[in-house]
């Protein structure tokens, strides 16, 4: 175990202890390999998330399951591998129902942190929005399957004192879920239960009453992180003339919060107006496009037929479309209705809701009222979106920085604190 051996990581030579797994060996030498299902006590490694996929002597494998040996050649940060890792996280976002702004675990979430770290602004995969169960049955625990990434940590690690599993996978394939055994869960001590919540890399296992013990802003991942460089897409030709850039904005199924945030740069808006002219936008109250625009800013996802029409029109009339805010990118809070039948949503809103008048029995409808869609869709599932500015809402500074840099065709970097969904 104490024998030192030589390995090469991305062309650099290192001496590491024999028999260690690659993740730990690399870490000891200051080389970071992203992991999600892996945690330091686990043995044997789980190997379920596949984030730590690397190339060892020409073959792809996961580093958590690989032990170092003499002469090993490891590639970690090839463009292809970086892309694969990003894609796996994006798959998890598309498969599950992750709404960071409303998640209790935000700031404590390993997956959220990894995504910030990798600079993920959106997922390349269409969202599945499958209806998953939130299980409140147990007295102490909540199992939030919408967020579960099936890493298997709890299944392997959390056992009762007599060695029985509290969690288990059930079913298989895309229907696989983690479920709780209520009887066994009741046998856990409070500290064992807390361990389960803290072990969960996302917000799937929650202990009632203990969720907000640590306030937002003070959490594990709230301050750490790296700044990100963003590469400009060639799609946009820099203007030669003296004319101002023309910008249009709209709010689809959103709360207008992103537009409010847009105005939050205070007097700097005067500088912005030096180079920018607004066309169709709630800010100008111009209802129809009067000319072709350089940039269209989209807040909110698509919840009804009008949203779809507006979005398509924006795509046709603008050279560059930027989705800003969680709702435009992931569907956001409005998309949480995707798991409730539409009829129930309407009845709750107009008939059974607390604020409805007694005896209300009408769901308003008219040919002039837009029709609700079966689901709320993120904008990039309807049209091509060129850039994404995450945040709920993104800060004013951040939004304008991105837009300026896009208009001026410059590469730019985003500070970690600006780059957030929550």
């Amino acid at each position, binding site marked *: 175990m104490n024998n030192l051996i030589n390995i090469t990581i991305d062309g650099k030579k290192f001496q590491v202890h024999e028999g260690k797994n690659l993740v730990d060996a690399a870490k000891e030498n200051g080389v970071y390999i992203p992991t999600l299902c892996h945690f330091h006590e686990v043995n*044997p490694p789980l190997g379920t998330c596949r984030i730590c996929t690397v190339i060892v002597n020409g073959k*792809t494998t996961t580093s958590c399951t690989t032990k170092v040996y003499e002469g090993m050649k490891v590639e970690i940060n090839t463009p292809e591998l970086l892309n694969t890792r990003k894609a796996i996280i994006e798959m998890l976002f598309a498969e599950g129902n992750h709404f960071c702004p409303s998640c209790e675990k935000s700031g404590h979430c390993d997956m959220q942190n990894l995504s910030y770290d990798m600079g993920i602004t959106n997922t390349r995969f269409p969202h599945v929005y499958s209806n998953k169960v939130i299980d409140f049955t147990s007295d102490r625990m909540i199992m939030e399957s919408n967020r579960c990434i099936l890493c298997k940590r709890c299944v392997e690690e959390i056992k009762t004192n007599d060695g029985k599993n509290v969690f288990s*996978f*059930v079913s298989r394939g895309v229907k696989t879920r983690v479920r709780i055994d209520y009887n*066994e869960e009741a046998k856990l001590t409070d500290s064992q239960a807390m361990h389960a919540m803290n072990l969960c890399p996302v917000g799937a296992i929650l202990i009632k009453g203990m969720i907000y013990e640590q306030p937002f802003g003070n959490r594990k991942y709230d301050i750490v992180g790296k700044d990100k460089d963003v590469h400009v897409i060639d799609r946009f030709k820099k203007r030669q003339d003296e004319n101002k850039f023309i910008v249009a904005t709209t709010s689809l199924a959103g709360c207008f919060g992103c537009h409010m945030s847009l105005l939050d740069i205070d007097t700097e808006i005067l500088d912005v107006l030096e180079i920018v002219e607004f066309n169709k936008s709630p800010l100008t109250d111009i209802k129809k496009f009067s000319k072709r625009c350089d940039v269209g800013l989209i807040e909110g996802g698509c919840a009804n037929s009008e949203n779809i029409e507006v979005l398509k029109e924006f795509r046709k009339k603008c050279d560059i479309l930027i989705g800003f805010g969680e709702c435009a990118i992931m569907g956001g809070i409005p998309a949480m209705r995707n798991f409730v039948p539409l009829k129930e949503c309407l009845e709750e809103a107009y008939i059974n809701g607390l604020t409805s008048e007694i005896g209300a029995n009408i769901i308003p409808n008219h040919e002039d009222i837009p*029709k609700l*869609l*079966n689901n709320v869709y993120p904008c990039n599932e309807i049209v*091509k979106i060129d850039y994404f500015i995450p945040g709920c809402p993104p800060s004013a500074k951040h939004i304008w920085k991105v837009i300026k840099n896009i208009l001026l065709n410059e590469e730019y970097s985003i500070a970690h604190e600006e780059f957030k969904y929550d």
Partner: protein
Amino acid sequence: MVTKETATKRTTLMNVLWDIQRKRRFISRDDMKKISSEFNISMIELEGVISFYHFFHLSDAGKYTIYLNCSTISQHKDYQDVKKAFQDELGILIGNVTQDKLFGFFKTSCIGLSDQESSALINFYPFTNLTPSKVKNIISKLKQGHSLESLSDFPKDNIQYTPKEEGKTIFFKKYNKGEGLKKLIALNQVEVIDLVKKSKLSGRGGAFFPTGMKWQFCKDNESDQKYIICNADEGEPGTFKDRALLNQYPGLLIEGMTIAGYAVGATEGTIYLRAEYLFLKNKIEKTIKEFNKDGLLGKNILGIEGFNFEVTIHMGAGAYVCGEETALIASMEGKRGEPTTKEYFPVEKGYLGKPTVVNNVETLCAVPRILEMGLDNYLKIGTNATPGTKLLSVSGDCDKPGVYEIEWGMKLKDFLKLTGAKDTQMVLFNGFSGEFLSEVDFDREISGENLLAEHIQFTFEDPIEYSQKMSGVGLRSGGSFMIFNKERDLISILKNITKFFVAESCGICVPCRTGNFLLNKKINKIMLCHADKDDLDEIKEWSTIIKQSSRCGLGKTSTNCLLTAMLKFPGEFQKCLLAESDINQSFDLEKSTEIYDSIIHEIESSYE
């Protein structure tokens, strides 16, 4: 706590579950309570095991449980009509149970009867070559109380071809009990392994790992107990050669396992038989008994002091991934059939943590034949890298579906001629995890010669050039050989394949579980002609990611078909594409507002 005793006891879990499933037609909460306390595991862990396997049910599956095969070959025969006939006769849709709990009707993936489709299993009795009128007859007879046994069709072996030249047939020839095994008297362990190594025998399930090497590793690992497992979980769609072997020569398999046991020092052997082949179990059991009686199994076999070997049968319960050796071992241990991380190979720590050899039926059957005919004679057959013969299971659009024993090295076009295939558009070689072959490949030979490293893939700009470059490159298959003529639609075949992987992924790793599911959606998009060129690029990218990062062979090979189909049949994809556009054409506004319209309509009409 997992102790040796509890682990050993746990291995009987699957049998217990099978007994209850058979008797009561499902496993109830009450049964689960009893079993979980008996095995000292939590209810949820037990439910995890039960729900992993397709053939275990948590609600009543009917006195007669019908599983209709829905795989591609069946689809191309009478699947739709047969399904309709079942539905009409039973008055239920597929996936349901009749109200009187007499019949349950479910679909299942390939059941190893591709040469006699459409086929179904009723309480695991096979019914082949189904037609609507046959279905009608079966159901009415069952209702009248006829026995399943009297109605079922014992599948034909359909052995269509063996090498014509004298002495070149290895498997399908006269079998004399014990002839191969008796050669052991003159050989020690090292000599047996040496012989297997020299024969260049390699894993015939499709992975082609050198068998001699595997045995050597297992032998070299010191242990008080070692195991031989025969992988008879022939789950690759379109394969059924092991079915024929098991039916014709169960003795040959037992001899093969016994020889393996002798070579590595194992005393226990298990045949992991897929549930779909339950109809073969009696015959194998009978043969095991005979062998025991004749002193070819048991203690001091052939009078060799200390040479003890037992063979038992372990029934699978419907999970394709259990064909993967580590998943198979997990399944035998009474767990969910999830592949391990390969931190240890089975030859190091396998079944119950002991060194274990897992070999395919065909591999094990080849061993006694090699001993019997002598290494020199064996090496004269086939090609240099792959001596001997290979069994192929041929199905689809040809005159003579069935099992073919061919000498390695036969040209693909010659083989196609043997099968009587006409107007062949493509061949799906090596099953759903294999590759699509088109005319440009028909000059290649079926052998292990000049195999391409996986990452080398010639570009396909000029089919003639491609064909010339590839003509020297050999082709290996675990056995599945599906032929499709020019009328078949490639995209719908691909749809069937991706659907299969969505259902059969064990669900434990992200790329395989989610990636295949998302790819399936992409295929739908292509089928509906909503896709554009970007979608094709995305399919390639996603497939490569799945291949690169999946945990086991299932995920790593699940996109092979799709990638090779895109390479060789670009036209089939092109014709479904739309012009490139910044707007996603698959989004249908009218369809997305259908629910809303119907709600409003319902409310409006209630006012009147």
